């Protein structure tokens, strides 16, 4: 690292649980991308789970306290806090927002974590770092292998932009930050309707049937819009769209219905046809790192379920 170098940005890093497990390729590609862009990234030591949606579903105070503690852990590392997972990002930002607005809550949280709530550190999603801190122009300049001809459906999901006053990432109904990044990388973002619909991540454990229905609509819409693949910025969205894609493709068919009866709970029979073509799901960092010329074995491409390599081969991007 060369701290004196101009425009060198350092970040503290909160990967979140998923990036160390089902979303490990997101972690791998994020690290690789930051290295390629000469951005410093230092993991917060011994961070722990932010509580995600379950915590605030069950107990808001607990959720705020877990995040507040993590935020104060993050203070030990220099630089704005980079967050990759949309759920972690949303929870950490929500905590900052709530505690700034509500003194009573702040006092309760401070009692719970037995220390002052640290609310000063900017929490930034990877998208924000790429598009704003690093900058779209510089991103475009840094591209070594533009993703020409790749039609990508940028999928935002719920938590990157909602509720409007918390994430401060982009317009809550008509965001463009992911499309802007895609254009900078040389790819072609498609216009599609379901980029902000919910994938049902909250039900992935308890009611997979719900996930199938919701994710099906998303995959179908992306496919109808002519996308080759979907880009996400959240390990939970990725989990649903990628890991469950096989089941989704059987959604609504007799086979799927049988599978649902055996393996899932509350399967909702539907008449919608599942998409028949497999759609690779990329993390934003995978695509960006690919465009920056990071060797393909460092993108974690082998870890995903729907193998993207045939598509990338077809587009001559590997």
């Amino acid at each position, binding site marked *: 690292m060369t701290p004196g170098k101009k425009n060198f940005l350092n970040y503290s890093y909160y990967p979140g*649980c*998923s990036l*160390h*497990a*089902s*979303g*490990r390729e997101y972690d791998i590609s994020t690290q690789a991308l930051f290295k390629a862009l000469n951005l410093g990234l230092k993991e917060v*030591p*011994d961070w*722990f*789970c932010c*509580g995600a*949606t*379950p*915590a*605030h*579903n*069950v*107990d*808001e*105070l*607990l959720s705020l*306290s*877990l995040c507040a*503690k993590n935020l104060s852990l993050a203070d030990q590392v220099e630089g704005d806090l980079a967050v990759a997972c949309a759920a972690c990002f949303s929870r950490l930002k929500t905590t900052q927002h709530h505690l700034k607005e*509500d003194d009573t809550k702040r006092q*309760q949280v401070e*009692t*719970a*974590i*037995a220390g002052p709530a640290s609310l000063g550190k900017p929490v930034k999603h990877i998208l924000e770092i790429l598009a704003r801190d690093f900058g779209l122009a510089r991103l475009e300049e840094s591209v070594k292998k533009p993703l020409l001809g790749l039609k990508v459906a940028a999928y935002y999901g*719920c*938590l990157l932009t*909602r*509720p*409007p006053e918390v994430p401060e990432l982009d317009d*809550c*109904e008509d965001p463009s930050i992911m499309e802007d990044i895609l254009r900078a990388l040389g790819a072609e973002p498609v216009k599609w309707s379901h980029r902000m*619909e*919910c994938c*049902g991540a*909250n*039900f992935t*454990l*308890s*009611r*997979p049937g*719900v996930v199938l229905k*919701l994710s099906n609509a998303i995959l179908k819409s992306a496919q109808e819009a002519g996308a080759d693949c979907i880009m996400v910025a959240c390990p939970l969205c990725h989990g649903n769209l990628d*890991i*469950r894609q096989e089941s989704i493709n059987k959604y609504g068919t007799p086979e799927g219905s049988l599978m649902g009866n*055996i*393996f*899932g*709970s509350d399967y*909702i029979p539907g008449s919608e046809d599942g998409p028949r073509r497999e759609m690779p799901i990329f993390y934003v960092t995978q695509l960006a790192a690919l465009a920056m010329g990071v060797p393909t074995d460092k993108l974690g491409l*082998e*870890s*995903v*379920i729907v193998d993207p390599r045939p598509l990338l081969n077809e587009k001559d991007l590997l």
Partner: protein
Amino acid sequence: MKNKLMHLSNETMNVGFVKKVEALSGTSVRRCFQCGKCSAGCPMTAFMEHPPNRVVRLLQLGQGARVLAGRSIWYCASCETCTTRCPNKVNLAAIMDALRKLSWDADGPSKESYVQLANRLFIENIRTYGRQYELRLGAAFNMKSGQFLKDLMLGPKLLSRGKMKLFHQKNKNLPEIEAIFNRIEEMRKKGEAL
């Protein structure tokens, strides 16, 4: 329950419950004028017997029991679409959070509250391991909810790709996490927090 005659009186309208919901969620149910925009945009309306706007309506009428008796609150995906689009700034997502908490605290788990069961296990995981340990989470949920085969097919796939670990990571902050849980319980006991 859904179409049962509703007797309205000071006694049958449980305003105290609504006040509790409002305090927990920090939002007012009286602001809602029932435009139905929440239900129109909710990805989960189809799964609910009371669409979101009706949940608020029932609260306006002090009918918390009717809301809790149904499955609606357990099918909210917390996607915040309702909160984002509400013309009256009713934070419906927060109301749902509050209702789930009150329901669980009062009635414990039920078949409808699988989600909450998963959530509880998720939180238990934090307390035990610090970070999520997905293999155990999945297994425990299936055990407790009695769906032993659910998602069985996914396991090997995930393990083979390194997406699920057989062992968990140890976290140095575990004592601190335990302390946070304990302090919150303490505050509740003393009535210093809701």
